[in-house]
């Protein structure tokens, strides 16, 4: 089923990531890092770049390592296990893949190199406040004036906008008809005039920003793509992002189960170890089985992304995201409940897993969104 070299590569990445995180990212260390700006460790960032991790998702054609999706997900799963937060998902995974999909032009290739070296951080500015998770709902307009393209509109949930050097802005051409809409994608340096960001901390200790664009100039090489395929290509790139999130969720589920097992095996109530109560045992078994099923679906997303395009990829990614997001949330809630009052304490990791899992479950489409997307794709498939 899985060839030996893939398996070995995965083990290597897994070991390397685990060593790195054990050394650098204890629960205490994490608290320190997220308490301060910019909400991630720039030291780690440099070290990760040196380890080549940012090159991993980028294909060899663009100077990357061209790692299989399974390898990328292996890394993300380890991040999930330790609640690791950084601009990695935004820049090295999501933006890099979007640009790769559209990098017919030199500007794309140049920026990919810099993303791969960790030199720049590019954050996708795709979603808009009125749109929920609908990629088709783009109110940001691109209009031509004075020989330049001017972008105006609002974007939300721009991950680590505080740390980004560039934004990847999706816009709709002004004056489009409903029947024929054209979209374009722009690489905008953050300090361009008319770009206004509001940064905030997110509940999981990461950072994000809201963006307002007020007649922001996108001069020729900055528009890295325009055409009918824009939304399709972005949607495929978001499949990788959602697969990555699902892998992080699976990692978080594993870790949540482990720490809950440790807790119930040491905690005593009514003169017995909590672990000896049968009703709690059965709930832990259900948590365990949800982990296993989630792991299976997560592995399938890797295969779908590397083997398919279009509907067959979309449906597998949405299947995994909606099932895993629900399972991860349920497991985190159960974990807190099994901890009892201790589960509400800030010093215990379990509550922070709930927060992280909640954030990840919403990112780039929540369970409801992917459930509806799955259903709609399913209806279109032949019976």
């Amino acid at each position: 089923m899985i060839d030996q070299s893939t398996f070995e590569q995965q083990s290597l990445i897994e070991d390397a990531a685990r060593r790195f995180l054990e050394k650098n990212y204890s629960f205490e260390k994490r608290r320190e890092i997220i308490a301060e700006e910019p909400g991630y460790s720039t030291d780690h960032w440099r070290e990760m770049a040196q380890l080549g991790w940012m090159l991993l998702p980028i294909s060899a054609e663009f100077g990357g390592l061209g790692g299989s999706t399974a390898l990328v997900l292996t890394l993300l799963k380890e991040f999930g296990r330790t609640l690791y937060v950084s601009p990695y998902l935004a820049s090295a995974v999501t933006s890099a893949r979007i640009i790769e999909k559209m990098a017919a032009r030199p500007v794309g290739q140049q920026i990919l190199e810099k993303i791969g070296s960790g030199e720049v951080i590019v954050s996708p500015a795709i979603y808009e406040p009125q749109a929920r998770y609908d990629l088709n709902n783009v109110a940001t307009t691109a209009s031509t004036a004075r020989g330049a393209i001017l972008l105006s509109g609002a974007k939300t949930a721009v991950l680590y906008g505080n740390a980004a050097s560039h934004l990847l802005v999706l816009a709709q051409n002004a004056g489009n008809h409903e029947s024929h809409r054209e979209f374009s994608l722009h690489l905008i340096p953050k300090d361009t005039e008319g770009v206004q960001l509001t940064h905030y901390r997110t509940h999981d200790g990461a950072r994000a920003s809201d963006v307002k664009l007020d007649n922001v100039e996108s001069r020729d090489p900055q528009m890295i793509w325009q055409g009918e395929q824009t939304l399709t290509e972005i949607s495929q790139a978001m499949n990788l992002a959602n697969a990555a999130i699902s892998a992080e969720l699976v990692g978080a589920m594993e870790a949540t189960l482990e720490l809950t097992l440790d807790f119930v095996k040491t905690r005593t109530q009514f003169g017995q170890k909590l672990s000896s109560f049968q009703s709690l045992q059965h709930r832990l078994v259900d948590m365990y089985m949800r982990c296993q099923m989630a792991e299976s679906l997560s592995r399938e997303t890797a295969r779908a992304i590397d083997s398919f395009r279009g509907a067959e990829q979309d449906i597998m990614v949405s299947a995994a995201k909606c099932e895993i997001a629900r399972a991860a949330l349920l497991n985190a809630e159960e974990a807190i409940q099994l901890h009892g009052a201790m589960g509400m304490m800030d010093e215990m990791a379990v509550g922070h897993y709930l927060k992280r899992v909640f954030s990840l479950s919403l990112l780039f489409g929540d369970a409801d969104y992917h459930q509806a997307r799955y259903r709609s794709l399913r209806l279109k498939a032949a019976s």
Partner: protein
Amino acid sequence: MLRAPPFNSELEDFRHTVREFIRVNLPDHIRQQVAAEKMDLPREDQVCWHRILRDNGGWCCPAWPKEHGGPGWSDEQQYVFEQELALGNAPRLMIYGVGMLGPTLFEYGSEQQRERILPDILNADTFWCQGFSEPGSGSDLASLNCRMTPDGDEYIVNGSKIWTSEAHLADWIFGLFRSSVEARKQQGITFLLIDLASPGVTVRPLKIFEDTHEVNQVFFDQVRVPKENVVGRLGEGWEIGKYLLSLERFGTAEVSRTKATMQRLTELAFAEIPGGTRLIDHVDFAERFCRAERALHALEMTERRILLGDQRAESIGTGASMLKIRGTEIQSDVFRLTAEASAHFAHIDIPRSQAGCHSDSPYQPGDAARNYFNYRKTPIYSGSNEIQRNIIAKLELDLRS
């Protein structure tokens, strides 16, 4: 919409009076905090609202008889009153002094204790908190270990209490302490009142993973307590504690509070989104919304059957446990739904005023998710839902282990 049946016209008139009173008299800055599901109101806001109610015929203590300054209401009136408080976004009543210690003193206190203590509760001059749980004995109260040793006219108290809500705001603590180690575990427990200003008392805040300050650990180091502060008989604490927990568990169903939360979610769900789609028009959300609505209605009607029921009503004892379980389960579901409803806005860990381009959106940044996290506590506290299931299994279904 599913609507609960009206009461008789007299009671509905009463409801109207209460509703109007809240609308007119509840200060805006308090209403807003409650509408944001804030549980840890500052003491001054709690006192302010308490006294407004007190000055209106003792409404601050709805279950108290007239002789002690309460309004002397029927069960139905109390029920309607608490509903209207919740639906009007008024603060919870002061549970520890008003809801718990008061009734305990009516039942078990001495005349002297009643005279000394009740007026200060009525006037909100004294703030109370409750000391039951201890480190290492969460839901297993019988194993508690915080010791009171006689010494002349006093007891000397040593040990600590944990998960003590509002101890940082309180003047006094009531609770269960171990007065004898020889007796059966449940028998050596005594109900005692302790002045938190006594030398040897330390209150240390416990940080919960939502940044609110709600609970504490209270340490007792050679704290001297006059013997007159024992309520009931020495060793009667277990019985008093059970009585008291049964009072607390009704409150914990939080049916009307959840109705108020659901009402806010309803407004959000039906709000027009300029350039977007109403939340309620997403069928997957809509179905989960409808499901919560139905579950909440079933719960509310069950609460009425139990609290105000006809002669066929089920035993009230385990009814409290059922309301606690289902009430907190549904409450958690509604908070999760509300948090998910906010989509991107849910992530944001700052108040709306500081948010970026969202000023025209009906969604609340920040609070929805914060409340979802914070309200994970209700299925745990006040006797975890697992303990409540054990109680129903044993007392209602006669299942022995």
